[in-house]
């Protein structure tokens, strides 16, 4: 621990929130359990959809589905290897399992089962995982800082990092219709509602400009798109015009849109992700730009390559530079 145990004067001393606490800021517009409700909706017309969880139904919003379709829900207990092996078996029999747990347990504990029984056999399993990146104050055991790197390294895998409730509601039917394995990051509980105001619609594999701007292009995924939009508003107060390109599909990456936007002259390009700086969206975008000969000024906002602290999420998001205020001040310093 390198940080001081006492907060700066004038700042309240925060405590680690409960595991199921919402990441929404106070007063932010939210929607309850968007994943669970969207899955119920999709399952009404898709009898092949089944729900699965490894003792985290309540913590992934799968309980909404379980209550609507108890006979289509499989509880496998706290056994993630079994969860994904059995999901593969159900998919082999023609079903479309949505298998839920925390991102740490899917990506780290059950990696070989996902790799071999699902991806290698190209089974139609949808892996939906709560607590992505830094969305828990419980320390590295619950912080899936590296889930995107691990999942995008697997052939056949589609990887999605949705931003908010509006997007999650659209991702669920889209991945149900997509043939093949999908890893989807999940925000659960009271989930912020942001993108509806921008007239946004999710399309699998498509990056979309949420907001245009002349000075800086923020390329972001997941909840960092919320932060980027907040930062863009704050930057506007300083007469900095920021564009936000939202990239919810990490794999396959929409290289065409990313290149077109990055090539629009003179803008600083900043990739912002709720993920370690190793192996995620930032390195993927950098690789695409370099190989295409597109060379904007480039900066990367992500979680540091270290085991992150326990604590209150607002404190940690500030500490590791992914809060809206931190994103704003870092971009101002780079301009």
């Amino acid at each position, binding site marked *: 621990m390198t940080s001081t145990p006492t907060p700066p004067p004038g700042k309240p001393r925060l405590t680690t929130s409960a595991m199921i606490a919402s990441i929404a800021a106070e007063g932010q517009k939210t929607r309850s359990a968007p994943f669970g409700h969207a899955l119920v909706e999709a399952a009404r017309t898709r009898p092949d959809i*089944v729900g699965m969880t490894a003792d985290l139904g309540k913590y992934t919003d799968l309980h909404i589905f379980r209550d609507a379709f108890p006979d289509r829900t*499989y509880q*496998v*207990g706290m*056994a993630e*290897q*079994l969860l*994904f*092996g*059995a*999901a*593969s*078996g*159900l*998919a*082999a*029999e*023609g*079903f479309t*399992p949505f298998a839920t747990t925390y991102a740490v347990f899917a990506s780290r504990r059950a990696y*070989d*089962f996902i790799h*071999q*029984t699902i991806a*290698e*056999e*190209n089974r139609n399993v949808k892996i939906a995982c709560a607590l992505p990146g830094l969305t828990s104050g419980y320390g590295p055991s619950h912080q899936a800082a590296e889930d995107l790197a691990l999942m995008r390294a697997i052939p056949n895998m589609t990887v999605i990092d949705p931003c908010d409730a509006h997007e999650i509601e659209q991702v669920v039917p889209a991945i149900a219709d997509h043939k093949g394995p999908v890893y989807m990051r999940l925000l659960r509980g009271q989930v912020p509602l942001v993108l509806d105001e921008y007239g946004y619609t999710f399309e699998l594999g498509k990056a979309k400009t949420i907001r245009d701007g002349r000075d800086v292009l923020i390329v972001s995924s997941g909840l960092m798109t919320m932060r980027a939009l907040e930062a863009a508003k704050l930057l506007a107060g300083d007469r900095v015009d920021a564009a936000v390109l939202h990239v919810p599909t990490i794999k396959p990456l929409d290289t065409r849109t990313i290149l077109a936007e990055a090539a629009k002259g003179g803008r600083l390009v900043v990739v912002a992700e709720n993920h370690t700086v190793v192996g995620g969206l930032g390195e993927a975008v950098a690789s695409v730009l370099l190989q295409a000969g597109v060379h904007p000024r480039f900066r990367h906002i992500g979680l540091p390559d270290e085991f992150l602290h326990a604590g209150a999420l607002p404190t940690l998001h500030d500490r590791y530079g992914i809060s809206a205020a931190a994103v704003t001040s870092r971009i101002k310093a780079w301009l």
Partner: protein
Amino acid sequence: MTTAPPRGANAPSIAERAYRIRRHAVRMGEVQGQGYIAQALDIADVLATAYFHAMTYRPDDPSWEGRDRFLLSNGHYAIALYAALIEAGIIPESEIETYGFDDSRLPMSGMAQYTPGMEMSGGSLGLGLSIAVGMALGLKRKNSTARVYVLFSDGELDEGSKWEAMMSAAHYKLDNIVAIVDVNNQQADGPSSQVMAFEPLADKVRAFGWHVQRIDGNDVDAVVAAFDAAKADPQPRPKMIVADTLMGKGVPFLEAREKNHFIRVDPHEWALALQALDAGRPA
């Protein structure tokens, strides 16, 4: 409508099928000059019984919906399963010559995408029973009466995932699973019981809520009876056949060879192994 290979009075006996499976496997070993041949020889009687007594399938339509599924969890036994699939008419015998070569449908380790009749990708040990649980749940959802047969080795019992899956198969009363454990007491680093003690296996699994039988896996009559009893058990519980087997079975000089997970066979010995099998061919 096609049918499974002939059974009944005029059909070859299961012992004859086991002999032929052993022969196909040795021929594949000869093609590559290597292979998990000792395991193939030990499990041939079980595979012959599965494919020529217990299971329902269509040789010319290996993914027929009504088939019994056979999962090879121990992917390195692929040479044995290929031999059974050849004998069952699912793979042409001519493909023996391609075993282990580039672009073959018969890779050294079993993979679902490569081979007709191969239901899963093995190789990484401990996967099969979890997949079997999902398939068994899926078959019940479809009101199918098909069964899921899954073969794994005693060494795989070291993997915690096997016990997760055993617990859940009993929890979900998956009476459509028949698991076969090949107890040849040999894994990569030595005798399985010394690498990690797993006995008393039958008692342990019975305590989990399974129907368990322990048999001599190289006694064809006992194997047949065990498959029959597994099918006949009226209780809503998964079934396990613990099969004690002898590595190298049917080739006396390999039976006697110091046991190794990957047994050494010298180039001239393949022909000798075939001769030994032929000498012991059932009457």
